[in-house]
């Protein structure tokens, strides 16, 4: 899936070449008004050509010229079809990989009476329960209702490391086509045949269910409008030519029309859209609609979960701060002891810190003596610790420890309060350690911000995107981390409701919001957000609610998604601008060519110095066709993207595609003119 497919993949090119001929079907061409006009033009000139072969038509002397023009008109249509077919072909290649995973799976269905029955995976219905053992493929999308298993999801994600799937919680969703590596799980199927995630992915990457996005529709209206205007300009040119005693042949008028209507963008528009989806797929992100990709480019506010996105998943102990009356080493020892059985990353980091800083070797558990008893963390006490040798060590959040040392409501010593506050203010999480109901000091747990995040946020800011960090931390801690990471704002002590409210508020002010999420309780917010990226590891509910799924389950990817959205829109705009600017040069090629014979003075407009009227018109038509081919790689790869403020981006793109669009065709047409003249085509 994640394998990158080269643009120059021979198989795809061959297939695309064949498809481009099939796409000539006028019923299909109608969807694209610009290219449809070209096809009609090509058809008309072909008919004229054929008529000229059968009966002598007066005035159609240069039949070699007419033949060549006609061929190039057809090429223009074919090239546009080819661009689309190329984009689709790349998607199809991805889909084939997926399809292989889907084929021929059998399911062990648990029937009503508890028997296990083998049926084909395609016969599974929603709410069926199947059992999957090690080595078997999971037959459909579902939810683990019993057991734990490691699952190889590489067919979907391309990620070779297995993932754990277990009943209950946020890691219960499994995807059809993935393989169980160890253990056995029971899965309740959550989708009907043909509607599975895999099915949807296949149709998405193939572009089968592709619909025009809102912006594409608007752009199509403009292109159709321009086409009508040029049709008017060209059709009425004949009466004016007659008035001027310089009537034109149909083929010349058709050539002028085809050169003027925006064939470049008209031919590449759908390819750009498909390629945009495809680029997301290559980043292991599936967009459920093209609309979502466009929305990604428009995002104003990014909601980023602190943990896992901005910071590394875990906090680490970075300092032991003892109360004035307590020896620091004593605190370290107590902290270490309390964490010996704490297998959380935080717990382990405490043990490691104590060892590194104070040379305290992690004591073997058995050396603690017979009577030791570990107190695991519980939601009730919100503390963990150890009891042994008359020592009772506890660590926990400050209010929990306060309650522990002074259940009657006395306050902890002011010194402790002060340390706790200081730690919290600097963005850390204070963990208070107490021994025998006496506070010893504080473990400073620090959030570690991922490398390079600050830069990325700066870039986003320069692009006008606000980042909001979402965290369950208290406001003090959150503010400090927000400051360190360089986000614009934060939402502390966030509940799912808070998140939802924030999204609503941003949207009410007209902003578009993107967020990532995985839990079931994220689902409403994912649905509310304009771009909701669900993690593939997340629950089915989350995946259904979002409009994109990140197969790598990497929330940081939100930023790349936004960039891909922007790149898609930029490519569309750049090629539109390029296409329209091109027309200026084409006028200077064709108009003088049309009237030079009747009015030699018109030669003054032939600023390119093209050889003859026929070579001028032919060169313009050839250029018009070739430029489509030449721009296919750009359409598929997208224009170069850099995180810059809008005004800078605009300046850069106008220079390249606007000004370039004015100048390039002058050079191109001249070059083609020189070539076709020297090889004697005209």
């Amino acid at each position, binding site marked *: 899936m994640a394998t990158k497919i080269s643009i120059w993949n021979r198989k795809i090119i061959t297939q695309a070449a064949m498809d481009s001929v099939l796409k000539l079907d006028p019923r299909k061409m109608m969807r694209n008004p610009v290219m449809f006009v070209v096809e009609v033009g090509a058809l008309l000139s072909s008919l004229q050509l054929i008529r000229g072969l059968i009966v002598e038509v007066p005035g159609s002397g240069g039949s070699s010229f007419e033949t060549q023009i006609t061929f190039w008109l057809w090429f223009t249509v074919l090239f546009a079809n080819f661009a689309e077919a190329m984009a689709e072909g790349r998607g199809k290649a991805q889909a084939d990989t997926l399809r292989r995973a889907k084929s021929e799976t059998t399911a062990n269905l648990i029937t009503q009476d508890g028997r296990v029955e083998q049926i084909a995976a395609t016969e599974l219905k929603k709410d069926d329960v199947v059992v999957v053992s090690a080595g078997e493929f999971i037959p459909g999308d579902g939810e683990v209702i019993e057991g734990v298993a490691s699952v190889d999801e590489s067919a979907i994600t391309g990620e070779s490391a297995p993932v754990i799937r277990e009943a209950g919680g946020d890691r219960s969703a499994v995807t059809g086509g993935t393989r169980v590596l160890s253990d056995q799980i029971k899965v309740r199927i959550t989708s009907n045949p043909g509607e599975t995630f895999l099915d949807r992915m296949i149709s998405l990457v193939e572009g089968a269910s592709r619909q025009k996005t*809102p*912006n594409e*529709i*608007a*752009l199509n*209206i*403009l292109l159709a*409008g321009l086409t009508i*205007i*040029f049709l*008017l*300009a060209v059709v*009425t*040119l004949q*009466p*004016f*030519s*007659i*008035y*001027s005693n*310089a009537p034109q042949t149909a083929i010349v008028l058709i050539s002028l029309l085809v050169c003027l209507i925006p064939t470049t963008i008209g031919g590449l528009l759908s390819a750009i859209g498909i390629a945009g989806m495809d680029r997301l797929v290559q980043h292991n992100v599936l967009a459920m609609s093209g609309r979502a990709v466009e929305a990604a*480019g428009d995002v*104003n506010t990014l909601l980023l979960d602190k943990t896992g996105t901005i910071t590394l998943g875990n906090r680490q102990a970075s300092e032991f701060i003892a109360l004035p009356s307590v020896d620091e080493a004593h605190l370290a020892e107590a902290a270490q002891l309390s964490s010996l059985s704490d297998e959380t990353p935080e717990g382990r980091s405490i043990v490691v810190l104590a060892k590194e800083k104070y040379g305290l070797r992690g004591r073997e558990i058995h050396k603690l003596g017979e009577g030791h008893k570990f107190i695991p963390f519980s939601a009730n006490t919100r503390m963990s610790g150890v009891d042994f040798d008359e020592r009772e060590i506890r660590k926990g959040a400050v209010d929990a420890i306060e309650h522990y040392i002074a259940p009657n409501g006395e306050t902890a010593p002011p010194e402790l309060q002060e340390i706790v506050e200081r730690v919290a203010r600097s963005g850390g999480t204070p963990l208070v350690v107490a021994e025998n109901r006496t506070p010893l000091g504080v473990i400073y747990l620090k959030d570690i911000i991922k490398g390079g995040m600050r830069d990325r946020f700066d870039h986003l*800011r*320069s*692009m*006008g*995107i*606000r980042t909001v960090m979402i965290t369950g931390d208290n406001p003090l801690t959150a503010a400090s981390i927000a400051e360190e990471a360089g986000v614009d704002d934060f939402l502390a002590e966030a509940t799912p409701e808070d998140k939802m409210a924030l999204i609503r508020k941003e949207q*009410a*002010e*007209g*902003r578009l919001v993107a967020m990532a999420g995985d839990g079931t309780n994220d689902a409403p917010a994912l649905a509310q957000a304009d771009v909701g990226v669900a993690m593939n590891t997340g629950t089915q509910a989350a995946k259904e609610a979002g409009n994109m799924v990140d197969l790598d389950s990497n929330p940081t990817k939100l930023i790349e998604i936004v960039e891909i*959205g*922007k790149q898609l*829109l*930029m490519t*569309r*705009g*750049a090629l*539109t*601008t390029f296409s*329209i600017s091109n*027309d*200026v040069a084409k*006028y200077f090629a064709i*108009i003088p060519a049309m*009237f030079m014979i009747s009015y030699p*003075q*018109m030669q003054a*407009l032939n600023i390119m110095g093209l050889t003859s009227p026929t070579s001028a018109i032919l060169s313009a038509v050839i250029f018009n066709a070739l430029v489509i081919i030449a721009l296919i790689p750009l359409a598929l790869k997208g224009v170069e*993207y850099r995180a810059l*403020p*809008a*005004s800078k*981006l*605009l300046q850069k793109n*106008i220079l390249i*595609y*606007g000004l370039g669009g004015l100048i390039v065709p002058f050079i191109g047409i001249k070059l083609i003119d020189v070539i076709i003249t020297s090889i004697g085509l005209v």
Partner: protein
Amino acid sequence: MSLSGWFQIVFYFALLLLITRPLGAYMARVYEGERTFLSRFLRPAENLIFRFCRVDEEWEMNWKEYSLALIAFSLVSGVALFFLQRLQGYLPLNPQDLPGVDSPDYTGSSFNTAVSFMTNTNWQGYGGETTMTYLTQMMGLTYQNFFSAAVGMSVAIALIRGIARRETDHIGNFWVDTVRGALYVLLPASLILALLLVSQGVVQNLNPYETATLADESTMAQIGNESGSGDSVELKQAVNTQTIAQGPAASQIAIKQLGTNGGGFFNVNSSHPFENPTPFSNLLQLFAILLIPAAFTYTLGRMVGSQKHGWAVFGAMASLFLAGVIVSYWAESRSNPLFPGNVDQIASETSPGGNMEGKETRFGIANSVLWATATTAASNGSVNSMHDSYTPLGGLVPLANILLGEVIFGGVGAGMYGMLVFIILTVFIAGLMVGRTPEYLGKKIEAFEMKMVVIAILVMPLFILSFTAISVLMPEAGLSSRNNLGPHGLTEILYAFSSGAGNNGSAFAGLNANTLWYNTTIGLSMLFGRFFIILPVLAIAGNMAAKKRVPSGAGTFPVTTPLFAVLLVGVVLIVGALTFFPVLSLGPILEQFLMSSGESF
């Protein structure tokens, strides 16, 4: 070209720049219903109108209601003007005893004129002093000069509101906007201007035409007769009197310029010495032409809360305008190679030089081209020189100004909303290049807006190109009206339909457009050219008003920068040039080449 000519052009432009801010701010206050220093005097009149017409001042309309009210008013007032013309022979204030327009034979002139003034085109298919009674001039033409202009301003304001407001479907009250525009902006300005004009010699009376006894009572030699009249020999007769037309001209001319109407009191419009007697009256009228359109850019900035955007739009308009003036001044100052060598065409301190055919001595070249550019940039259409006699490139400038959609300052209101259509187009095309779906001042530009924009930009080419094409294919109805042959004849016809569809009203006046064919087709062009832009524009206003407004930031498309102004200029030029380049290449461009190589027709 002379230093003094350039100085006058620069002086004029500086004056315009100076007034833009105060007037623009004043207009914003007027349309937002705030009190102004004139409220004390005008508020009673305003109240009277609202009460009489049962208009609730506080009630606001959605775009459909606004459109319906606009159409109802245009229809009623247009029909009224039609019948006023037909019946003028029976009505008072007719000292010359002129018959009803279009009597005895209907040639479509009264229809054409009714449409022409109702659509703010003010195309004159007729000669004022030989056709219209004083009553028609005042109650019909002067009235429409005020109100067709006020309607245009209302539409622009409605669109600006649509952009500025959010999540509402109200865009204002048509009746209220129109009354305020006429009462607070147009009327006071007209009074001041009219008085200044009279001081310069513009007539203002209800007298019958004056007969003067000529000093040189001799036979008038045959000079400069209208073309095509084969009976020139019979004209060698004694001429010893001169009939001098009179009338209430100043009051109409003031609003003719301020409202970018342009329909003259006399046949030759502002080249007539009674309509524009001195260089100062010329400056005043020139100033009046672009006064309100320029100020509208400031009003736009003020009302949408981005003054810089207003100035960017002003900048785009100004650069197109100045470019036009420069080209035209250059072209008209050059010698016509077809003239005999012993004609002195070089400018000097005592001779204007250049192409003086169809230009007045008191204005010379600079003031003529400045006017020609201003009157066509704005959809004014009044003339102080005859565009038909311009050199090919000199005449291309006014024609191109119209073809670009009358958006270089443009008509009062009409220029603003026309330019806003182009702004939306620019934002749509270029906006994508910043990596966001297009948005204008925080409003998303989507399929609906594009549909309306496309309709609006399609109307002009549709009517101009089709009717011109049909006309050149008809030897009798189309071609026989030409005053010039060759490419210039094509330009005459093209100019007529451009002027009509663009609601400009100026002409390559040699074309005899007072025929059934031209009266009807140009009438239709004016009608569609007006309403098929106004209706899409109001639809856009309504649709935009309902949208949320995305706050602007570093990532949004900048509409306040010089780069934006350049882009806007580019889009206006490219859309216009791409559409009309083919026909222009067979008109003025071909004529220029042929003139250089010494051909005449």
